[in-house]
């Protein structure tokens, strides 16, 4: 059986890298991308230097995948940026960047992936939202709004792509122990955790578990859903 082909955005480090290595171990061919060079490489992994908001570059990436593999089984829209700041202190340029990367980037990859997936009438797309959406976290207005848009995109695209055998779902992680979290005051993180049913930081494995569920062939009847972690 041919290896499934999986595209993951934002694989330079963190959860993107983790998922890249995780699905390589599962026998996938993994294509990753980021704006700058990754900190890792592996057999079966191919990296593209692509800004997810650059339509021409994104289309080129998919063109290469189509010519090389003639298939795409999975897409994980992991690339995203956050900015934690009071809205009154947030420059409009920051808002633009967040919306461009998180919303426009996700839309572009979904659109191009669907074009490729529809030929085999099969595909699994997983987008990234966040618990900041249902928790309505103060200090994350632009980030939270962008990830709410990702939920909405997920729900609508699920309906548009269902005809082609493609499911579109989203995972909403809790804070995970990453570089991003280490820069936030501990009492703020602790307060956030008290709002979860399971009050602990998430792990990369928690996220991979949800992605695995969405990826399963048996999950073809599951689409347009967002699973928030931690019982939020």
């Amino acid at each position, binding site marked *: 059986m041919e290896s499934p082909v999986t595209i993951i955005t934002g694989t330079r480090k963190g959860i993107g890298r983790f998922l890249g290595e995780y699905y390589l171990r599962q026998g996938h061919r993994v294509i990753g991308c980021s704006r700058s060079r990754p900190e890792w490489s592996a057999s079966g992994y191919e990296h593209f230097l692509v800004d997810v908001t650059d339509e*021409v570059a994104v*289309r*080129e990436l998919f*063109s290469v995948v189509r*010519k090389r593999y003639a298939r795409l089984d999975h897409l994980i829209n992991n690339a995203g940026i956050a900015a934690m700041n009071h809205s009154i202190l947030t420059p409009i340029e920051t808002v633009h960047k967040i919306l461009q990367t998180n919303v426009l980037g996700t839309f572009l990859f979904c659109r191009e992936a669907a*074009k490729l997936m529809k030929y085999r009438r099969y595909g699994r797309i997983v987008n990234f939202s966040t618990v900041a959406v249902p928790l309505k976290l103060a200090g994350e207005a632009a980030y939270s709004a962008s990830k709410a848009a990702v939920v909405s995109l997920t729900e609508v695209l699920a309906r548009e792509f269902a005809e082609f055998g493609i499911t579109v779902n989203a995972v909403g992680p809790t804070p995970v122990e990453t570089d991003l979290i280490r820069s936030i005051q501990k009492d703020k993180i602790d307060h956030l955790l008290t709002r979860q049913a399971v009050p602990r930081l998430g792990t990369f494995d928690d996220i991979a578990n949800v992605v695995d569920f969405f990826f399963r062939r048996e999950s073809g009847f599951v689409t347009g859903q967002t699973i928030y972690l931690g019982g939020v």
Partner: protein
Amino acid sequence: MDKRTEVAEVILAVAREFHDEAEGDSPIAVARGLQAPLYGSEGGLDSLGLVSFIVAVEQAIEERLGLAITLADEKAMSQQNSPFRTIASLVDYVVGLLNGTL
């Protein structure tokens, strides 16, 4: 071979693929050649069929002519006469895009 003929051949080939895959219930009357209606009052493609046809034409043009174009952009959607009426109107539209006149 001029550009218009090349584009027409590519689009007609995609239309024939759609016709063949439909197995008797073809949405495109390929026997009418360039005058075959695609989408609209006379066309047999429904909205999802049009989406699939547009994607197939974009990919065929990239593969066979080495040119990346986006067919369903604001220009196409805002034209008074849709470029997706017939194969001929679509050929005109694609040639216009490739020539940079649209």
